[in-house]
């Protein structure tokens, strides 16, 4: 039986982790994630989980310890944000290269300099090439659901990869919203017992983790790692199917909203997608066929499916809450690549919004949809990459 609660995104993720009851958890504070691991630490202190915590002295050590623990053979979690994720960067590659299914909620926050503690996607986007699976979440409910599903995806015997569950800092992590919790036992049954794969603590079969591989085989190892990523999509969909049976909540590799017959569309991640949906409804009421695509699985990126979903649209704006200075926004780059093979492509533009927690308002969505509407009629894109909600 589902339980309806009003909790923050951080609390929801912490609760998901409690329900899963992992073996080991690396804990280090960073705004806006802090509150999540703090809650988890109190679950440990109150004996609500069997987890052993490692109260590390940095995020780098947190990820290092998580890698050691996961290689040892067991279920491992941690969480971070922003500079913490950046400090982990080196170790993120090692976690995925060693094929260790560590589960990590990432409470998205801007990167320094200047110092900023608010929500944007620069942190996780900076980690997009680290070989981690990335699931993105619009709200606390999705963050909770994704966290639970992440275990099944990452620990799948064909996959064995670490998973980041991304949620917007403050906007979701610190907002109380209505959501539904599954029962503890339901979650435990859904996730299942941890299955070992090449555990280091198998003392009778000594293994060496982390060899030096030179020009002879490194290329092959990385090719093999890519191959694993190609299998992720199907696993994500299978897990989502099972999750729907359990929760009634449907997940795909992305969500579309009124996109099927849309002339114009916005592609946008996380919490801003919700705000955009409300504005799309307003435009539909005015007779403008607007729609939305919200990626859930960003790594691996489902290129073919995204192209298929957008191919009939006349004009698409990809909105990035992160920048690649001197390049297009990271989400834009993926969507543009996805659309490139199409013979008839939508017109495409890129807007960077909401950096460092700048509010994304309905008026911003309206501005973009209005521009898209004009483009769909004129067939002309004036400025391909632009910043919105920025003061001149």
């Amino acid at each position, binding site marked *: 039986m589902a339980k*309806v*609660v*009003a909790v923050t995104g951080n609390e929801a993720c912490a609760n998901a982790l409690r329900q899963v009851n992992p073996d080991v958890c690396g804990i280090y504070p960073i705004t*806006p994630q802090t509150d999540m691991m703090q809650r988890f630490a109190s679950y440990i202190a109150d004996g609500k989980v069997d987890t052993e915590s490692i109260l590390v002295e940095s995020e780098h050590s947190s990820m290092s310890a998580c890698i050691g623990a996961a290689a040892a053979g067991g279920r491992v979690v941690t969480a971070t944000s922003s500079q913490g994720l950046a400090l982990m960067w080196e170790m993120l590659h090692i976690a995925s290269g060693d094929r260790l299914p560590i589960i990590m909620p990432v409470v998205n926050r801007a990167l320094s300099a200047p110092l900023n*503690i*608010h929500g944007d996607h620069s942190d996780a986007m900076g980690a997009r090439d680290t070989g981690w699976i990335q699931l993105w979440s*619009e*709200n606390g409910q999705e963050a909770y659901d994704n966290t639970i599903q992440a275990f099944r995806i990452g620990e799948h015997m064909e996959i064995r990869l670490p998973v980041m569950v991304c949620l*917007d800092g*403050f*906007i*979701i992590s*610190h*907002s*109380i*919203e*209505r959501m539904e919790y599954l029962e503890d036992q339901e979650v435990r049954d859904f996730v299942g017992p941890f299955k070992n794969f090449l555990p280091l603590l198998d003392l009778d079969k000594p293994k060496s983790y982390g060899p030096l591989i030179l020009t002879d085989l490194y290329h092959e190892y990385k090719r093999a790692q890519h191959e694993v990523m190609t299998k992720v999509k199907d696993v994500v969909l299978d897990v989502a199917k099972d999750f729907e049976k359990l929760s009634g909540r449907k997940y795909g590799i992305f969500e579309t909203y009124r996109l099927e017959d849309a002339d114009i569309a916005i592609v946008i991640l996380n*919490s*801003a*997608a*919700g*705000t955009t*949906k*409300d504005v799309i409804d307003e435009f539909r009421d005015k007779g403008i066929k607007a729609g939305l695509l919200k990626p859930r699985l960003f790594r691996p990126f489902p290129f073919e499916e995204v192209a298929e979903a957008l191919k009939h649209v006349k004009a698409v704006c990809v909105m990035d809450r992160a920048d690649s200075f001197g390049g297009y926004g990271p989400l834009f780059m993926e969507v543009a690549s996805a659309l490139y093979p199409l013979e008839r492509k939508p017109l495409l533009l890129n807007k960077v919004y909401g950096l460092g927690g700048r*509010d*994304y*308002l*309905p008026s911003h969505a309206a501005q973009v949809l209005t521009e898209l509407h004009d483009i769909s009629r004129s067939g002309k894109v004036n400025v391909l990459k632009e910043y919105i909600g920025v003061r001149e």
Partner: protein
Amino acid sequence: MAETVEIRWHGRGGQGTVTAAKVLADACLSGGRYVQAFPEYGPERAGAPLRAYNRVASKELRMHCPVLEPDVVTVVDATLLDSINIAEGAKDNTAFVINTTKDPKEIRAKLKAGPKQRVVTVDATKIALDCFGRAMPNSPMLGAVCKVTGLISIDHLLDDVRKSFGKKFSQKIIDGNIEATKRGYEEVKEG
């Protein structure tokens, strides 16, 4: 109830404003409603002006941005009336709930409130001091907001206050807050 009720809280760090918004959200959860409660965050600490928001709706809340056009504006610290524009974005029929010793008519004049805008006052700080000896006006303000919005019954709210405060405080403080919430509900003055 309107499809969505949006509330903006103005307070100062350390007055329990964010807690009030959270308790209200939790209390409004009943009846299958959707709720949001979220503060505005900055590096500000105790004493700095802050805002918090509520949305309560009968359908799923997807909007994830600050409340720009509040149905209710709640001011937990009357001194803020002189320093910030608490009426920003207010609609024709917005209700103002103000913690003040002053008469609602005086406040109405000060705010230059329109004819359909409601102005409600409550001496929340005094109630808090009476009930539990601390100048924490959040629980009487909750009572006042409950009365003005009619979102939930006072009994339901009191249950939630008991639940929320019970996690952190002693029985004496909980009882004080229950009493204060009740008095906040009862002692609102409209003008």
